[in-house]
């Protein structure tokens, strides 16, 4: 985990379609929120991307870098108080495992969708 104790993985399921769903709990006391923002705690969008990457790393047992992000949409605001539990669904393309897609959701709310390309760290 790049940013230590930013979140905790509560559950992990490998689905029959090859995707993996991680349930994570955000750490509302993390120092990131002292700076983002002092008067209003909002989970930085890039921290959502980082969590997605770390879930893909866990699912594939590889250390990865996003070399491309074709599209990443932030469709709802994540806050550690308002949305402390998140599901992160990650999938790699069976035909080309460098192609990945991910969704962060909880209940009926989708927080982020992402499609990109990963490469193994040197």
């Amino acid at each position: 985990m790049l940013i230590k104790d930013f979140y905790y993985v509560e559950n992990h399921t490998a689905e029959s379609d090859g995707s993996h769903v991680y349930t994570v709990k955000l750490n509302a006391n993390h120092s990131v929120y002292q700076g983002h923002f002092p008067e209003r705690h909002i989970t930085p969008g890039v921290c959502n991307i980082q969590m997605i990457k770390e879930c893909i790393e866990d699912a594939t047992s590889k250390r990865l870098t996003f070399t491309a992000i074709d599209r990443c949409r932030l469709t709802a605001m994540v806050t550690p108080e308002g949305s402390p539990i998140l599901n992160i669904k990650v999938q790699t393309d069976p035909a080309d495992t460098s192609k990945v897609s991910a969704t962060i959701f909880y209940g009926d709310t989708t927080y982020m969708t992402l499609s990109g390309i990963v490469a193994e760290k040197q």
Partner: protein
Amino acid sequence: MAKTVLYAGDGIKTFIPQREPMLMVDKLFSVSDTDVETGLTVTESNIFVENGVFAETGLIEHIAQSAATFAGYNDWINHRPIVLGYIAEIKKFALQASLPKVGDNIETAMSVISQAMNITLMNAESKINGATVAVCKMKIFMDK
């Protein structure tokens, strides 16, 4: 030749609401109503640094805060309050070189592609020593 710096370090805090440990812009080189040039020197203590390497997510945050610096400066110069801005969308991010390392000076140039209501779409290119490290397009939502 070193670039002229308009604002550096704490001076950036006039324009953006982010604070340590999430402050990812430490220099403002130039700014207009359509363009901005910012910088960040990668330090060992940066929260996005692991084993001396600056993660791509840190680089994306640096680009997002460069857009926020652009918006914040233009609000400040026009006597408007500085508002919170969020990434709404990242498109066509491409890493074109190795990730930045501790000690590297990242310089980012951004320009407005379109602006409508509270959404600004900008083009971004980040360089180290004149070589492109990453490009992307970023849509920023300003919470006005």
